[in-house]
């Protein structure tokens, strides 16, 4: 069972690597903001896989908080893009 979690960790790591390569080649700031959001969710996935590998009992709490608070970084980046103009 743990080989599945390791494969999933590798897939999330590949997703993060591809996304960071795309950040380096992107031209506009909106693309960079949304790719940063993708890196955040892939990191949450890696944390979930590690929590299942070592049998932590708080893994559902981790995903719960991450899904509720993931909006904050995106909204902050969008406010930065428009310089506070709504």
């Amino acid at each position, binding site marked *: *069972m743990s080989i*599945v*979690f390791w*494969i*999933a960790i590798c*897939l*999330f790591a*590949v*997703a*993060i690597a*591809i*996304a960071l390569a*795309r950040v380096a080649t992107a031209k*506009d*700031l*909106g*693309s960079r*903001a*949304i*790719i940063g*959001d*993708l890196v955040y*969710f*892939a990191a*949450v*996935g890696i944390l*979930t*896989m590690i*929590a*299942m590998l070592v*049998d932590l*009992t708080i*893994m*559902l*709490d981790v*995903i*719960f908080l991450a*899904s*509720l608070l*993931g*909006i904050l970084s*995106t*909204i902050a*980046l*969008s*406010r930065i*893009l*428009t310089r506070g*103009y709504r």
Partner: protein
Amino acid sequence: MLIVDVLIAVFVLTGALLMVTSALAMFRAKDALSRINVFSPATGLGMPLVLLGCYIYTLQHEGFSVYRLLIAIVGFLSFIIVSSIASNTLSRSTVLVGSPVHRYTRPNRLVEPLVPVDGGETGDPTAETETAHGDGPAQRSV
């Protein structure tokens, strides 16, 4: 027991593959609005599948609990709803800041003229609400 393991593996691997697919689609999308659009399978389907696999794993190893079921349901719904609101906010600010829209992005009401030049049939109410904002910079096409 074996069927539960297969279910966990399918859910987790499908979620991870959707994330990789969404990261690869960032190369194929031409502008920022399309990239925000192709990001939605990762958070709308991939992360809820990962959470479902994690909840089944918890159910298998630690038994049923009302608290964990509640946490899982709220997390499942918030992955869909909260990330959609975040994408909407980010795409709105991307439009307001005047980032270029590729000509392959279609239908594109943003680069149509705000004031109808001939006839008067091309003006739509969304364009009038865009002019109501005042000093938002104009859209330009690539």
